[in-house]
């Protein structure tokens, strides 16, 4: 179990659903954990719903089907700008153009996400069934992999694991294509046990990792022989002559389970075998817990949350939806002590600030400009330690597995100044997607009008706090923020300034002065520790 020298009050350990209308605070908590930055309008849309209604809504797939990435570089001679490349055979000559398109397309989906759990779960699965596009260069394969993540975002985990095993991207990434009779390659087999399904347990004797053994890895590698990828069709296929047809016998851990030659159906049986073990369910439940609630799992949480959820997961034949619904509607999930304890990952931070501050998107239909804009977000997120489509290794980003710090790994002396830079661009300097395009600027008045009475500093500031911070502000904090907005003047001066702007809409200087004060406030708020947390 975890190292928990520090005892924290972790709240109600109950999976019983909360009741009644959500209200603003709970709706915000739910959306921040299920999306990338909850917007004011989205929170307002959710706040009058019950948790049941809210989750039914979030667990729908997006209204539009997944539309493929678009080529946006004129030096890709095979794919005209504005058309997709996913049906054109991959050509390494255009690898950088296609990779640019693929990565930014994905960023764009996060930016333009519906009110849905879809993208948060796609990212969860990307961090679970990792492939790196720095390793798998073929963007068509990356796209096929991405389609699979989308299809199973909250589908059946067991079927998902089977499909992933023979996915073109995965076969390339973990050397499945090199795995053949007489020359087994254990790479995928090892990660299948260690990371993707049952998880590694303590090493109890040489080659025995409690939940599986080195022998099991070798036998599984044999089961998985025979698969190749076809770069004309971007599909995988099975070749009987490459398959190891011998009988595979697993260790005592799997009750010496045997798999006799079933050709291309064998891998499914392997997955079936691993899913017979409850530890597989526990492993995924723990991972989802860390994704949605908090990284500390102590004995009590293990017993009262993880274990019943694992049972529920198995009872529902590894369907993800009922599991998520129970977890995300629970009193535990909404416990006050556990709200605001998640350090935003870099994508939550960059996409979140753009969405929450209503930062404008490029106007017009120039698809290249949109991709440019997303590329800025992508670059900034990578700078903070998280490059979408290219996790550091097969275990995914360390913040989700490396004890004892987990989430805290996002925050260090390198990332803190870089987060501040993101805030500087988004709030103060504006973002120019590329030198040939206009710079885009934040409109702080949009946010000010979220307040019922923006001319009242005591309404305006709490409105911002409510949207941007996980907890209500203390009096000290409110004073500090007032000081920033009003530069030490008495409260009524804000009203005077604001009304002067409202009553003289043509006075550009007055408008600018009010805007600058609002921006200074927003800059300060988004630079604070509170804004790093959801």
């Amino acid at each position, binding site marked *: 179990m975890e190292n928990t020298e520090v005892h924290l009050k972790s709240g109600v350990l109950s999976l019983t659903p909360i009741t009644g209308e959500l209200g603003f605070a709970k709706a915000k908590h739910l959306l921040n954990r299920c999306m990338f930055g909850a917007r004011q309008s989205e929170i307002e849309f959710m706040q009058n719903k019950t948790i049941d209604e809210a989750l039914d809504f979030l667990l729908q797939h997006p209204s539009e089907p997944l539309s493929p990435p678009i080529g946006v570089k004129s030096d890709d001679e095979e794919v005209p700008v504005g058309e997709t490349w996913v049906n054109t055979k991959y050509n390494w000559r255009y690898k950088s153009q296609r990779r640019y398109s693929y990565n930014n397309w994905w960023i764009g989906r996060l930016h333009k996400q519906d009110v849905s759990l879809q993208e948060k779960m796609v990212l969860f699965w990307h961090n679970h069934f990792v492939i790196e596009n720095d390793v798998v260069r073929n963007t068509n394969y990356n796209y096929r992999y991405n389609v699979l993540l989308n299809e199973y975002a909250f589908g059946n985990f067991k079927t998902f694991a089977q499909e992933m095993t023979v996915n073109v991207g995965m076969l390339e990434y973990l050397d499945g294509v090199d795995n053949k009779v007489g020359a087994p390659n254990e790479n995928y087999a090892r990660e299948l046990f260690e990371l993707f399904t049952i998880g590694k347990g303590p090493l109890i004797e040489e080659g025995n990792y409690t939940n599986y053994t080195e022998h099991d890895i070798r036998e599984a590698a044999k089961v998985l022989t025979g698969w190749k990828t076809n770069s004309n069709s971007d599909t995988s296929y099975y070749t009987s002559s490459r398959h190891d047809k011998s009988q595979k016998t697993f260790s005592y851990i799997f009750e010496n389970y045997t798999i006799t030659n079933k050709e291309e159906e064998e891998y499914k049986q392997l997955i079936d075998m691993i899913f017979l073990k409850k530890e597989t369910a526990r492993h995924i439940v723990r991972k989802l817990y860390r994704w949605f609630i908090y990284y500390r799992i102590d004995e009590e949480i293990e017993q009262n949350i993880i274990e019943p959820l694992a049972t529920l997961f198995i009872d529902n034949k590894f369907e993800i939806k009922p599991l998520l619904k129970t977890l995300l509607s629970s009193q535990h999930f909404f416990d006050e002590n556990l709200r605001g304890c998640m350090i935003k990952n870099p994508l939550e931070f960059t996409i979140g600030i753009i969405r929450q501050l209503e930062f404008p998107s490029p106007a017009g239909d120039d698809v290249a400009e949109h991709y440019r804009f997303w590329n800025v977000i992508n670059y900034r997120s990578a700078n903070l330690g998280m490059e979408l489509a290219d996790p550091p290794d097969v275990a995914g980003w360390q913040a989700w597995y490396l004890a004892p710090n987990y989430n805290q790994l996002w925050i260090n*002396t390198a990332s803190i*100044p870089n987060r501040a830079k993101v805030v500087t661009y988004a709030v103060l300097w504006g973002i120019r997607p590329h030198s040939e395009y206009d710079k885009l600027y934040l409109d702080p008045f949009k946010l000010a009008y979220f307040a019922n009475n923006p001319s009242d500093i005591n309404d305006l500031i709490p409105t911002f706090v409510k949207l941007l911070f996980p907890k209500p502000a203390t009096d*000290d904090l409110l004073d500090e923020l007032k000081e920033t907005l009003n530069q030490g003047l008495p409260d009524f001066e804000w009203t005077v300034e604001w009304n002067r702007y409202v009553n003289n809409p043509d006075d550009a200087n007055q408008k600018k002065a009010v805007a600058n004060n609002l921006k200074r406030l927003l800059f300060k708020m988004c630079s604070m520790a509170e804004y790093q947390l959801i």
Partner: protein
Amino acid sequence: MMDRRKFIKNTGAFITLPILLNGQAIQVLGANGGFNVEKTDGKVLVLIQLDGGNDGLNMLIPLNMYDNLVKVRPEVVLPKNKIISLTNLQGLHPSMPEINEMYDDEKMMFIQNVGYPTPNLSHFRSKEIVLSASDSRTVISSGWFGRYLDTLHPDYPDNYPDDTNPHPIAISIGSSSSPTCQGSMSNFGVVLKNLDTSYESPSGEQEFPDTPYGFEMEYVTQVMKSTQKYLEVVSETAELSESISEQWTEDNSLADRLKIVARLITGGLTTPIYVVNLGGFDTHANQVTEGETELGKHADLMRYVSEAVYAFQDELKQHQKEDDVISLVYSEFGRRIASNKSFGTDHGEAYPMMLFGSRVNPIVFGENPTIPASVEKKTNVPFKIDFRSVYASVLNLWFGVNKTEINNLLLGEFEILPILKNAVSVDDNINKPNQLKIMSVFPNPVINSAEIQFVTNGGQISLRLFSLAGKEIRNLRDGNLPGGIQSIPFTKKGLKNGQYLLVLQNGNERVSQKIIIQ
């Protein structure tokens, strides 16, 4: 909110007393009653981590086993005529001429067959084991160097940096902190991507509730505050120095990172440890180019290492900093003896480490691994040297940590290897460990008189008694002594009752022990 200071006291019983030794401010720390003088000042350890598991058999080639290597790893074995001959028994990868030059120049040590019992072939678990210095059945969440730093800085990060500790305690180059520098509570690593970053932290004092939210808020706030201070000192230091070596090469990420380290060391940062990584060593497939095994992925990696390490050492030399720095090149494990059909190698066990610097013992330590003429797919190079022996040797010989404390830090007793030049003569038996220590003060507490027994490496020694306030009280012995066990009598005559510190110095090595006069 938990109190780090209290936490440390409850669990570790460490005592911190600032004292002055010969006018220099130092810290005296003790665990379990034994005292230990901090002496990291000036001494630097650079850790170069090769991520993914380096194929040692293609880096340091056991030439006497070459014929069998051809048989068992036909896909990846290097052409004999391309291998650089390092010694009559060991060859080097053709991409490493600079490493060969450093060996000839007596600045490079190889330690063969490094590993640990009951190996774990998972990257993640094995990396945890190697960075935490646990045995393979125990999960420890702190890093081996982090635990050492815990003893020196039990209050970290409260009020750090300050006038006493203005510089980062540890530095990782990259985008995340190294688990090696993870202490029991915080990670000591300041993370740097480049040298031209600045940051202004938001103001405000706060109380943090005893909840997960409060815990994370406190953490983020703390990092924001120290970031500003550390980045100021780092950029100021970097300003004081510049890269002058002409050996740095382009398009080499390890070189880029070591260049930053060199700037900081030569600029005068007192940080004792730097961690840098180079990834890409998980060469399951296409480790070599088919038919031209001296080329390919691994060859590129070997070249990066060789060029970067060479330039780094040259930079230190140009700045006369060579004697202050040693660097260790290691990985989470080696690779299988047999190659696979994908022109790669799978996860293995033991492999050779490299330790370099002007002070290291420039030998190939340990015998060549035995390669049978035929092996099973799963056969591995068995380990002979526990990686924790290397850590113990660094702590003992380089940082002057006494053995009792090392046993605490590394959770067991490990052999001290002759990793430094002055630790053992080239002709000497390589198994003879460095001996400098105060063996006993008997009786202690001292009622009237006592006998002090100690072991030296020979040469100039001094044995002095200090008050805990750092004042020299008595010079007990000063002069040239042969190596080995020495014994001198000691009487309390003229000394007040109380605690004192006995300090034995031998060359650059220094050990100490607390004594009580009653």
